[in-house]
């Protein structure tokens, strides 16, 4: 290599000069991404920087509440955020997001129309966001520990696992965790009771709260991300969790090879299907880079790469064939049409319902 040095030296000097000149104007600059924890593969970010020259500043959260507080405070400094569609609807009303510029998003043609239409119930015309990943809220469980307590033949695809006092009571000793997310837990409880999971009636929430309270003593803890590692370590045996997170736990358990077997079930009484959306805050410092990032994610091969890593399905029709067969054919990740029939989507609550839900949730969680 040594002999090439003299030739490269001026070039290096020129490019350094160019960089120095470019820096103040931040020609390529950065994109500040705020996404859920364990929700992307780091290689994708590197590939994005390689292709566009835009640096990615990446930060994570584990609840919609955290994201919303940052956005409502204003001047969050983020260019791309990933709210769940139900939360996004209210945030749009608060004026948090800017309209997407479709001219900068040619890859939007790859998206699955049916799923985008489902998301459009929260964001009419998909004007503010495109689907990043989607998933279901169901039950993650330790196969052996559950079989040991309930018998080999027990059908695990039921909310009985956590909401039936008798069944949950038998599982309590090996550890049950619930999502610390009332907007996931209340609709699940309503579905179990045979109520409309999209209800916003106070009486239905009271009924759901009563059910949850009757089994809360079986719950080891309420948390929305801790269960991933705890399921994988055998620290807990049942978790109400998000599909891909549970399956990540299953994969980690398999990699660790310590005899822990984890799997995911979509309860037959009905489970929530949710969409996480890529959106751009109204005051994003680099909106063009944000569009470039979103467009990059919508490339079929990139969407597939992320799904192969996080085990959440994407909404990219062109990417489906590129997803590993093992994942693409797994009904726990891509539910079968029959199961899809039983899924329901979330609703956005008004502020009175919100307060009721939070209050009831505190009562469930603390017994107060």
């Amino acid at each position, binding site marked *: 290599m040594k002999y090439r040095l003299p030739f490269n030296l001026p070039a290096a000097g020129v490019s350094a000069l160019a960089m120095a000149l470019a820096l103040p104007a931040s020609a390529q600059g950065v994109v500040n991404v705020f996404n859920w924890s364990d929700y992307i593969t780091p290689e994708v970010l590197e590939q994005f920087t390689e292709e566009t020259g835009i640096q990615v500043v990446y930060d994570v959260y584990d*609840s919609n*509440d*955290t994201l*919303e*507080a940052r*956005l*409502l*405070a*204003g001047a969050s400094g983020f260019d791309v955020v990933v709210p769940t569609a139900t939360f996004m609807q*209210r945030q749009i*009303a*608060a*004026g*948090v997001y800017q309209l997407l510029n479709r001219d900068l998003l040619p890859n939007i043609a790859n998206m699955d129309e049916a799923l985008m239409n489902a998301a459009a119930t929260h964001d009419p015309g998909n004007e503010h966001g495109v689907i990043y990943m989607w998933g279901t809220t169901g039950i993650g469980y330790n196969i052996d520990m559950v079989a040991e307590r309930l018998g080999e033949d027990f059908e695990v695809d039921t909310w009985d696992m956590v909401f039936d006092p008798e069944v949950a009571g038998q599982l309590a000793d090996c*550890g049950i965790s619930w999502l610390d997310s*009332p907007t996931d837990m209340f609709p699940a409880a309503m579905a179990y009771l045979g109520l409309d999971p999209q209800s916003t009636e106070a009486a239905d929430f009271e009924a759901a709260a009563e059910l949850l309270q009757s089994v*809360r003593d079986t*719950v*080891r*803890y*309420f948390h929305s991300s801790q269960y991933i590692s705890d399921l994988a*370590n*055998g*620290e807990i045996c049942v978790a109400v969790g998000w599909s891909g997170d549970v399956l990540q736990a299953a994969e980690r358990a398999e990699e660790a090879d310590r005899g822990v077997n984890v799997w995911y079930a979509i309860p037959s009484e009905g489970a929530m299907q949710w969409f996480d959306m890529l959106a751009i805050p109204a005051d994003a410092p680099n909106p063009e880079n944000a569009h470039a990032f979103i467009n990059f994610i919508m490339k079929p091969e990139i969407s597939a790469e992320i799904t192969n890593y996080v085990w959440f399905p994407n909404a990219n029709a062109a990417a489906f064939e590129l997803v590993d067969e093992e994942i693409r054919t797994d009904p726990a990740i891509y539910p079968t049409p029959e199961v899809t029939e039983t899924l329901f989507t979330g609703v956005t609550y008004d*502020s009175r319902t*919100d*307060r009721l839900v*939070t*209050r009831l*949730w*505190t*009562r469930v*969680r*603390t*017994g*107060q």
Partner: protein
Amino acid sequence: MNRLSDNALWRATARGFAAIGITGRTLVIAIPMLWFLVFFLVPFLVLGRISLAEAIIARPPYTPLFERAADGTLSIIASLENYWFLWQDTLYRNAYLSSIRIAAISTICALFIGYPIAYFIARSPEPRRTFLLLMVVLPFWTSFLLRVYAWMGFLRREGVINNMLIWLGVIDQPLVMMQTDLAVYIGIVYTYLPFMILPLYANLTKLDGALLEAANDLGASPVVTFFTVTLPLSLPGIVAGSMLVFIPAIGEYVIPALLGGPDTLMIGRVLWDEFFSSRDWPVASAVAIVMLVLVVAPIMWLQSTQDRRELD
């Protein structure tokens, strides 16, 4: 420019400042005052103002303080409704009481553990004393969060303590220690123990040895000497240490969130819920203001009684 005129210039400047009321003394006080204004009073006023508003879906998510009506009249919108709301719902009262209880029990535990340690260090010969003090302060060199996570490793079902006890044959089933109140007490006492030890140590090293000798000469046993001489004289240290543990423990959020169970009710968590889950900044602000008053009022009372005692 020679030294003399330099000096004269300086004096003239000082006189100029004095004329408009700025003296050396005000300049010295200015820094802490400014600090107090910027980092306490202004945020406190902002909180107070938000606590009088009403939550709405907007950015920021609360009603403005002033509203200009169509005819141009400016009206102030403020209500104490949020405070009334806190008073009506037993949740908040219980959360305040439970926080005070957890903080009080932790403080007492820290005192019982910290006092003997401080006493021992204060009685140690010089080189060893420095070393022991260093050992007390050493944990501060690692992140607080990391230390709490380390406790999770100890207390877990498959954690160090359970594995050790099972290996020793003391228990066959792992004990459930995580997500209990016990874990919260352990976390708080462990974290704040140095704040108890250091003021006690400072107090105990200043204890006049002649007093102890006098007590001994007059026939008091070591135990009697401790309770009649050492303990009363170390009371200011006990008060200072207890305050340093009690006050931050009341508002503690991280330790109960990581180590505590679902029924560990503390005001820090309730505040978090109001702010993040209910998205009700006004009520969250009211919770914070009430907490501040609850913590500050007893300290001010204590301070004033102490001042009075010193005057007597």
